[in-house]
C-alpha cells in the first residue's frame, strides 16, 4: 500500500540512455565522440547537459534522435524512450517520433529556418505531417503557438519570412515549431548561445515556463553552467565523450566533486564576496584521436596521481544520486 503511493508520487521514467557509444570513423582514425554515456530522465524534469565544445553533448542529442550521419555511427548502447528501445526501431518509425514525440531546438536561429518559406508554412507543414491539420485549423493552431511563445500580433507576423524577424524572434518561432506537436521531450541544443544576453534570459524563462506548465521534459544542452543550473533538476557534466559527474543540480553546483566541474564553477565570476582573479583550467582538451590512457582529464588535473594514468575512474556515487568519475572524489584522504 505504502509502496504504491510512493510510485504514484515518483514521476515515471521517460528516457533511459545506457552505455551509449557513438563513434566517428574518420580517415585519421576513430573519434569516440560519445563513449559510454548513461543517464535517465523522468517525466516533467529538466536535465542540463554541460561541457565544452566537442565533448559530445550535441552528438548525444542527435544520437537520441538517431540522426548521426556517416562517418558517424552509433556503436552500442540502449536508448529507451517511453518504454520502447529507439535503436531497434526501423527508420519509418523514427520519422514518426522525430518532431512528434521528441523535438529539437537548434543553436543558430539565423539558419535553422528555411529562408524561402513564410513562418506560417513552416509551422503548418509540421502540423500537417504529424497531426494531419490543414487549412484554417492549422492556421489557427500556428497563430496560437506564436502567441504562446510571445510573438506580438501573431496574426500579422505569421505571413512574414524569416529574414523579417530578429534573432530572438526567430528563436521563438523555432520554439513554437518544436512545441507544435506537443512533444514529451524537447532537446534544446544551446538554444540561446547565439543571442544577446538580455534576450537569453527572457527566452530561457519562456522556454522553462512552457516546459514546466505542460509537464514536458527537456534536455538543455549548453556550455553555460550558470544558465543550466538555474533551470534544470539534474545536471550532467561531460568531458571528452564521457559523463564525469552527474546528479541533482544543487549538489553538482554547490558541492562539485570532479576537478573539472570545480574548475568550471571557479571560472564563473561571483556576484558576491571579495573580488579576485578568476581561475582558469590550465591546458587544452586532448586530441580526440589521441586520448590519454586512464582518466581523460589527467593531463590538466592538479591532483593527478599514478593511478589516474592507468585506470579510468568509474562513476561512483558519493551522495544520494550524485555520481562522480574521479578516483579521489569524496575522499577525505586526498
Amino acid at each position: 500500500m505504502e509502496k504504491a503511493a510512493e510510485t504514484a508520487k515518483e514521476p515515471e521514467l521517460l528516457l533511459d540512455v545506457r552505455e551509449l557509444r557513438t563513434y566517428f570513423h574518420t580517415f585519421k582514425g576513430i573519434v569516440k565522440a560519445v563513449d559510454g554515456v548513461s543517464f535517465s530522465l523522468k517525466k516533467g524534469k529538466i536535465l542540463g547537459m554541460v561541457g565544452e565544445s566537442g565533448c559530445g553533448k550535441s552528438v548525444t542529442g542527435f544520437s537520441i534522435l538517431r540522426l548521426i550521419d556517416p562517418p558517424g555511427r552509433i556503436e552500442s548502447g540502449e536508448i529507451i524512450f517511453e518504454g520502447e528501445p529507439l535503436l531497434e526501431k526501423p527508420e519509418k518509425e523514427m520519422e514518426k517520433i522525430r518532431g512528434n514525440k521528441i523535438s529539437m531546438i537548434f543553436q543558430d536561429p539565423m539558419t535553422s529556418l528555411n529562408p524561402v518559406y513564410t513562418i506560417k508554412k513552416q509551422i503548418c507543414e509540421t502540423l500537417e505531417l504529424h497531426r494531419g491539420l490543414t487549412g484554417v485549423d492549422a492556421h489557427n493552431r500556428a497563430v496560437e503557438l506564436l502567441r504562446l511563445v510571445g510573438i506580438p500580433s501573431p496574426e500579422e507576423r505569421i505571413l512574414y519570412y524569416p529574414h523579417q524577424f530578429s534573432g530572438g524572434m526567430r528563436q521563438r518561432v523555432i520554439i513554437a515549431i518544436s512545441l507544435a506537436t506537443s512533444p514529451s521531450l524537447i532537446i534544446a541544443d544551446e538554444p540561446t548561445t547565439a543571442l544577446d544576453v538580455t534576450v537569453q534570459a527572457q527566452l530561457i524563462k519562456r522556454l522553462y515556463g512552457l516546459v514546466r506548465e505542460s509537464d514536458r521534459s527537456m534536455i538543455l544542452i549548453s556550455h553555460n553552467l550558470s544558465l543550466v543550473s538555474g533551470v534544470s533538476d539534474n545536471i550532467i557534466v561531460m568531458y571528452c565523450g564521457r559523463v564525469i559527474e552527474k546528479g541533482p543540480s544543487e549538489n553538482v553546483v554547490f558541492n562539485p566533486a570532479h576537478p573539472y566541474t570545480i574548475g568550471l564553477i571557479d571560472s564563473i565570476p561571483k556576484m558576491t564576496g571579495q573580488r579576485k582573479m578568476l581561475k582558469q583550467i590550465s591546458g587544452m582538451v586532448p586530441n580526440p584521436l589521441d586520448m590519454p590512457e586512464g582518466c581523460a582529464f589527467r593531463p590538466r588535473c592538479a591532483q593527478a596521481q599514478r593511478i589516474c594514468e592507468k585506470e579510468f575512474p568509474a562513476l561512483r556515487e558519493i551522495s544520494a544520486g550524485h555520481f562522480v568519475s574521479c578516483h579521489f572524489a569524496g575522499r577525505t584522504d586526498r
Partner: protein
Amino acid sequence: MITTVRMTKLAGILHSEGFYNFRHNPFAIAGALIILLFLLTALFGPRLVTQNPYDLAQLDLNDSYKPPIWQEGSDPRFVLGTDDQGRDMVSAMVYGVRMSVAIGFCVTIICMTVGTTLGLISGYKGGRLDSFIMGLVNVQLSFPSLLIAMLVLIAFGRGVWKIILALSFSGWVTYARTVRGTTMAEKNKEYVEAAKVIGFSESTVLFRHILPNVMTPVIVIATLQVGTVILSEATLSFLGIGIPITEPSLGLLVAQGYVVLFSGLWWVSVFPGLVLMFLVVGMNLLGDFLRDEFNPRLK
C-alpha cells in the same frame, strides 16, 4: 482570404527591389519586350500571316526569289520577298520562330529538370553516386556540346524530337554541376537538420526544403540557355543535320539563302539571321539582368 494573400503577393512583387531595378534598367526592359514579342509571334503568328509556307499546295514556283517590297520587281503580297520555292519570307520566319522558341524552351525545361535533379541527389548523397554522376558530367564537358549533339543526331536520325533529345543530352551538365555545388553548401545549414528533426523523409527534405534554396542559379542558367539552344538548333539545321527540310527553321532558311547570297538574293539569308540575332540578344539581356539580380555577391 486566399485572394488577399494573392493580392499582397502581387503587390509585394510590384513593390520589390527586384522590380524597381527592372523598371530602371532599359536593357532588361528591352530584353523582356523582345522576348514578349517573340512569344506572341510564336503563339499567334500563324493566324496572322498570309500563307502556310510549309504547305506545298499554297506555294507557286512562279513567285520564287521575289525581292523585298522596296526593291524593283517586288510583289506586294510578299513584304520581305520570297525564297527559291516561292515562300513568303515573313510567313516562313514566323513559322521558324515558332519552332526555335519551342525547341529552346523544351530543351531548357528538360535540361533543367534532369540536371537539377541529378545535381541535387549528387550533392546531397555524396559518395559513390556523386562520383558516378560527376564523372559523367566531366566526360561530357570535355566534348564540345555541338559535337555531342551531332553524334546523337547521326545515331538516331533527323527530326524535331530528335534534335530536342540531342541538345538536351549535352545541356543538362551545367545544371548538375551548379546545383551540386549549391546543394553541398545548403545541406549543412541548420534548417536542413531542423527539417530532418521534425521528421520529414529524405526526399521531402531534398525536394521541398533544399530545392527552393538552390533554384536561383538554375533560373539564371535557364534564361541564358534558351538563347544558346536556339543558336545550336540553327547551327545544326544550317549544317543540314538538324530540322528536316520539310519543317520550318530559321537556321535552314539561312542555309538556303547562303547558297545564293552572292547572287544578289541577299534577303533569303539576311532576314532570318537578323531575327535570330534579336531573339538571342533579347534572351541574353534578360538573362544578364537576372544574373545580376540574383547574384548576392554583386549586391
